[in-house]
C-alpha cells in the first residue's frame, strides 16, 4: 500500500549537509498497522513527511496505493494539483493535533471537505457522521480549546478521515497524551483499521504503541531502517534490537555459578507451560529474573530472562530442551556469551 524505495533526504544549510534519510526502503501492506520506531533525530518524522511529500525527498520514490507520488510532485517547491489531489486521499494525524482554534469541531472536520469542494449540506452530514464514529457526537459546536487532549486527537482523526482515505499517517499522535488516553486513541485507530480496512503508518518513540497495535514494525537509526518485519518475525530474529526494546528484560545473575538465559516466545511457540515442565523434567530450580510477556490470541508473546543453577556447561541439555519446544534461547551473560554460543553449537553437533 505504501512503498518507498531508496528514499533519501539531505538538508543543506550554510554549506553543511545533514542526511536525515539515507536510502529507506519501506513496504507497508494493505490493511496493516505499521509502526516506525526510533529515537528523536533518527529520521522518523522526515520519513512520514516524505510519504505525502510535505517534505520533498532528495532522491528515491514514494508509492501510495499504486500511485507514484514522487512523479506527481513536479519540479517546483509548490504542490501541483495532482499531488494535492493525491494528498487528499491520505489522512494525517499530528502530535499536537493541529486543529484550527478559530473553528468549531464540526467546522474543523469540514475543512478537508471544503478543500475538496464538497457542498455545505454534504459536508455537515459527513462531519457529523465522522464525529459519531470517533465518539464525539455531542461536541460538534465546541471549540478545540474546550476539549481535552484525547478529544482533540479524536477530532484530528475524524478530520483525517473526512476525505475517505485508504491510508492514515500518524505522526506521534499519542506522544502528547497520558497513558490512559493513549490507550483509548490506539484502540480507536485499531478499530478504524479493522472496520474501514484502513492502512495505518505510524511513527512513535513509544514501544508500547508498537506492542499494542502494530502488525509490523521498523526500527530507524541515523536515517536508516536497521530492522523491519512483522512483530513475530522481529521477535524470532536472534539478537534483534527491536525485540529487546519491545520486550525489555533485565536482571543480573545472583551468583557466579549461574547461567542466565533469555527465552523468547513468539506466536508459533508452544502454548505449554514450558518453564515448569523444564523444572520437573530436569529437577532443577529456575528463577525468573525478568519478563515482558503478553498473551495474544491464546499464544504467549514476549521475552523472559531466567536463571538456571550451575555453569553453562551443565545446562546444555535443559537449554536444548527449551529449543526443542520451539522457543528461541539466547545466553544472556555478555561476558561469556561468545564462547558459550560456540560451545552450544558444538553441543548441537
Amino acid at each position, binding site marked *: 500500500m505504501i512503498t518507498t524505495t531508496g528514499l533519501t533526504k539531505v538538508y543543506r544549510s550554510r554549506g553543511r549537509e545533514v542526511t536525515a534519510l539515507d536510502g529507506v526502503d519501506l513496504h507497508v501492506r494493505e490493511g496493516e498497522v505499521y509502526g516506525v520506531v526510533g529515537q528523536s533525530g533518527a529520521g522518523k518524522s522526515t520519513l512520514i513527511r516524505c510519504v*505525502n511529500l*510535505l517534505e520533498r525527498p532528495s532522491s528515491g520514490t514514494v508509492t501510495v496505493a499504486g500511485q507514484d507520488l514522487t512523479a506527481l510532485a513536479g519540479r517546483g*517547491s*509548490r*504542490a501541483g*494539483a495532482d499531488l*494535492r*489531489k*493525491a*494528498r*487528499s486521499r*491520505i489522512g*494525517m494525524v*499530528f502530535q*499536537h*493535533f*493541529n*486543529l*484550527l*482554534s*478559530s*473553528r468549531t469541531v464540526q467546522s474543523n472536520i469540514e*475543512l*478537508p471537505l*471544503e*478543500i*475538496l469542494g464538497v457542498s455545505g449540506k454534504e459536508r455537515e452530514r459527513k462531519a457529523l457522521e465522522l464525529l459519531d464514529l470517533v465518539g464525539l457526537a455531542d461536541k460538534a459546536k465546541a*471549540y*478545540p*480549546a*474546550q476539549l481535552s*487532549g484525547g478529544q*482533540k486527537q479524536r477530532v484530528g482523526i475524524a*478530520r483525517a478521515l*473526512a*476525505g475517505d482515505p485508504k491510508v492514515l*499517517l500518524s505522526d506521534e499522535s499519542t506522544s*502528547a497524551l497520558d497513558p490512559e488516553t493513549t490507550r483509548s486513541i490506539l484502540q480507536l485507530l485499531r478499530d478504524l483499521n479493522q472496520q474501514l480496512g484502513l492502512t495505518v503508518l505510524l511513527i512513535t518513540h513509544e514501544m508500547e504503541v508498537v506492542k499494542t497495535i502494530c502488525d509490523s514494525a521498523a526500527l530507524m537509526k541515523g536515517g536508516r531502517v536497521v530492522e523491519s518485519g512483522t512483530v513475530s518475525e522481529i521477535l524470532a530474529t536472534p539478537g534483534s534490537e527491536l525485540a529487546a526494546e519491545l520486550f525489555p528484560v533485565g536482571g543480573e545473575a545472583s551468583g557466579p555459578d549461574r547461567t542466565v538465559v533469555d527465552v523468547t516466545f513468539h506466536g508459533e511457540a508452544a502454548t505449554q507451560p514450558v518453564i515448569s515442565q523444564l523444572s520437573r523434567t530436569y529437577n532443577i530450580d529456575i528463577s525468573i529474573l525478568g519478563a515482558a510477556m503478553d498473551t495474544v490470541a491464546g499464544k504467549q508473546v514476549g521475552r523472559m530472562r531466567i536463571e538456571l543453577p550451575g555453569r553453562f556447561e551443565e545446562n546444555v541439555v535443559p537449554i536444548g530442551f527449551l529449543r526443542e519446544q520451539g522457543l528461541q534461547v539466547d545466553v544472556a551473560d555478555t561476558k561469556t556469551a561468545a564462547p558459550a554460543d560456540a560451545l552450544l553449537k558444538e553441543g548441537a553437533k
Partner: protein
Amino acid sequence: MQPLLRDACLDTLFMVWWSTVWAIIGGIPLGLLLVLTDRGALLQNVVVNKVVGAVVNLGRSLPFIILLVWLIPFSRLVVGTSIGPSAAVVALVIGAVPFFARLVETAIREVDHGLIEAAQSMGGGTLTVIFKVLLPQALPSLIAGLTTTVIALLGYSAMAGAVGGGGLGNLAITYGYMRHETDLMNVTILLLIAIVTVVQLAGDLVVRRLSHRSGRQAPAAGLRRLRSAAVPKPRTAPEAAEPTKAA
C-alpha cells in the same frame, strides 16, 4: 466654540477612518507577502521579500512629521491639495500601511506552522492556506494590531493638524497653545482620551469574541463579557493563552 469642536472632531474621524481603511487594504497583502516570500515559506522569493522589506522599513524609519512634510508635493498630486484633511490622509496612509504591515506580519507569523502543514496534508494549496488558515487564525491578533494602528493614526492625525491638516490636533495647537485657550486645549485632550478609550475597548471586545482559546466561554456569557470589558484591563495578547503550544 461648539461648531469649532464638532468640525475638528469630524475632521479627525474622517482622517482616521480613511487612513485605517487604506491601511487595511495595503497592510494585509504586504504583511502576508513578507511572511509568504520569506525563506522556506510557501512562496519563497528572496528578491520580493527584500524589496518589500526595504520599502516597509523606509516607511517605518522616517519620523511621521518629516514624512508629512516630505509628502506635500505627492499629496497635491494625488488629491489636488496640500492642506486640509484629505491631503493629510495621503500622508497618514503612507505612514500607516508599513506600520500595520509589520503588525500583520507578526500576527501571521504567530500562526503555528503545524496548521499550515495540516492544511497541506489535506490537499490544500497556497490560497487555502492563506484564506482558511492564516487569516482566520491570525484574526484576533490582526484586530489587536488594527486597534494599535488606529490609535497610532489618531496621534499621527494630530500631528497632521500641525501642518494644516485640520482636526483636533490643529485645534489644540492653534487655539489651545497659540491663543492660550487652556479650556479648549483640555477639552480636546479629554476628547482624544475618550476616542482612544472607545477604540481600545471596542478592539479588546472584538478580540475576546474572536478568540476561542480560553475554554470557559459559555454561550450566555455575552453580558458578563461586556461588563468585564468595561473594566480597563491590560490587553491580553491572544497568543499567551494558546493551548497547542503548551500541549
